[in-house]
């Protein structure tokens, strides 16, 4: 298993990526492999560490006093140019490319647009193990996903800030039981120590369907994106082994 950033030569825009990726060279491995792209969204109460988890996963960094996403969305923090971040995870046969969407702070006043969930094939719902409130909120997000998102969405529950276990307010067993009841992946994570960060993304990557085109999401690739050039028919937003 490897977890490496997409190389510039390969990381063209999602649309072009999807249409060309069928036989793309892996930048580091050199072998022929199938690349599947999935939209992953992060949800959870403010300040539970959503952005920190992504920062750790995508850049291997942790900022102790990272400001709230309000006014400085993750995408701005990480890169001056990105609506969402991407990171690839290599499985045996396939490379899974995550298109990771940040809430851009819109969850704070319950103002997240339905567009955010639309076509998401995976979600990480994050809570802070030091707070029952954030765990309750996480359950609400799970319900919201079950109502709004694609029925096949893979949901992972992340009990973050596991490095602060001495201030724990949510028991591991409690969260695990809830996750089992609802068919969620579950791990306690720490963006600070990197505990289980790559692992949770890898677990999601393994669980995602890699053969059905689109996975029932994002219009199943039937629309097109617009660009400055000529018509650029967008291939499936999901798996792209056509």
């Amino acid at each position, binding site marked *: 298993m490897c977890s490496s950033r997409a190389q510039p030569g390969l*990381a063209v825009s999602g649309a072009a990526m999807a249409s060309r990726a069928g036989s793309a060279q892996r930048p580091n491995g050199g072998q022929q492999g199938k690349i599947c792209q999935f939209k992953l969204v992060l949800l959870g109460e403010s300040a539970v560490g959503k952005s920190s988890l992504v920062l750790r996963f995508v850049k291997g960094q942790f900022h102790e006093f990272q400001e709230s996403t309000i*006014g400085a969305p993750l995408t701005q923090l990480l890169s*001056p140019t990105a609506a969402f971040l991407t990171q690839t995870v290599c499985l045996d046969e396939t490379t899974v490319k995550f298109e990771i969407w940040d809430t851009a702070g819109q969850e704070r006043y319950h103002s997240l647009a339905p567009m955010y969930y639309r076509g998401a094939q995976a979600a990480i719902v994050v809570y802070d193990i030091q707070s029952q409130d954030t765990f309750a909120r996480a359950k609400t997000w799970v319900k919201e996903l079950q109502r709004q998102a694609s029925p096949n969405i893979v949901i992972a529950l992340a009990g973050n800030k596991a490095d602060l276990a001495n201030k724990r307010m949510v028991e591991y067993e409690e969260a695990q039981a809830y996750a089992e009841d609802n068919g969620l992946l579950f791990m306690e994570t720490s963006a600070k120590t990197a505990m289980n960060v790559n692992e949770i993304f890898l677990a999601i990557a393994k669980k995602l369907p890699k053969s059905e085109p689109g996975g029932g999401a994002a219009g199943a690739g039937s629309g097109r994106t617009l660009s400055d050039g000529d018509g650029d028919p967008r291939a499936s937003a999901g798996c792209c082994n056509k």
Partner: protein
Amino acid sequence: MDEEYDAIVLGTGLKECILSGLLSVSGKKVLHIDRNKYYGAESASITPLEEMFEKFGLPKPDESYGRGSRAVTVAVGYRAVQCRPHRRRGTGTSILIPKFLMANGQLVKLLIHTGVTRYLEFKSVEGSYVFKGGKISKVPADEREALSSDLMGLFEKRRFRNLLAYIQDFKEDDPTTWKGLDPKATPMSALFEKFGVDKNTIDVTGHALALHRDDEYIAQPMGTTIARIKLYSESLARYGKSPFLYPMYGLGELPQGFARLAAIYGGTYMLDKPVDEIVVENGRAVGVRSGTEVAKCKQVYCDPTYVPDRVTKSGRVVRCICLLDHPIPNTKDALSTQIIIPQKQVGRNSDIYISLVSYTHQVAAKGWFVAMVSTTVETDNPEAEIKPGLELLGPIKQKFLTVNDHFVPNEDGTESQVFISSSYDATSHFETTCLDVLDIFRRGFGCDFDFSKVTHTLEDDQ
């Protein structure tokens, strides 16, 4: 919300969301509020269908419309404007304005230049038709199509082709292509005369190609109409089939996309937040009050529903949303289409528009179609006015009829710093919408929007 902002934007209709995005990108600190708990202002997209039936006071739809809460999503359109304070919001306030995007038009340019296009997917509208002599025909858009069209006789076809050839060769900045006609001084009628086209051809050209709503253009300088016809054919050239595009999941996606742009540039969003008052000092807006909270600001941008005392009613628009379980007859089973009924064909002063979208856009359950018939109200019986449109649809499963007032602002905002958008007009595309937005931005910001400020391309180019 007790903070200070450069601008507070009220209402999350498309115009306000674009403004919010452009202001945020330009470095302004923006607070964006909507009194409703959803994006898109007065009506955005209505899901599920039950809600739609309820809004119109109809009994619950039965299972034939598709199962489950997401069965038939009528995610077709746009808010309509009704000036009523939020506390009295009641039934029937919403309805949806049927519009398509011109593939080479202003909105697509805005989407691409701001990168918002990255969040959206579109489909080309499959057909564009015009009503003539009691039946519908495909709109010919170039010389070749003009020659094969069943809209006119052989000799008329040639004249029409010559007119289109002239327009295709016409270049605004190259007087040699004008063939002696000054586009700013020559009325469109003179151009029609030059090519000797008849009244029917004039109808098709002015209404189905130039997309004029009435006949005022005929007396006006030909430059505008030529530009509109060029926009039509350039849009057509872009993706084929028709010059129109429609977003997957409905038009409600557009404001959400621009709202996300604003949020990425630091804008704050609050839905479901009552707006009680625009606080004014010395004739200038200084804040917005919600309950006991006041957010301070230097400017307010809003739709007419937030400022009933600052707008004037300028007319009425009738719209009828029809649920069908079949395509529109005589459109080759197109899953999406536009039909224009030029005013003169049915003895009116303004055109009737029909637009059809369907399950292929994820706005309805499999096998279902959503047709919208609309026009500017001219009589006391608006429903009768759209009858020629309804008659083209074949059997209709359910109709939702609304008549909405159209409002324009009383002021340009430069004194009060309250910048108000106009209600959405009856045109079938977003060209006027974008012009209004860019004009409001210019008035509020002091200069045109600078696209080079878009540093976050919103593209994944790591």
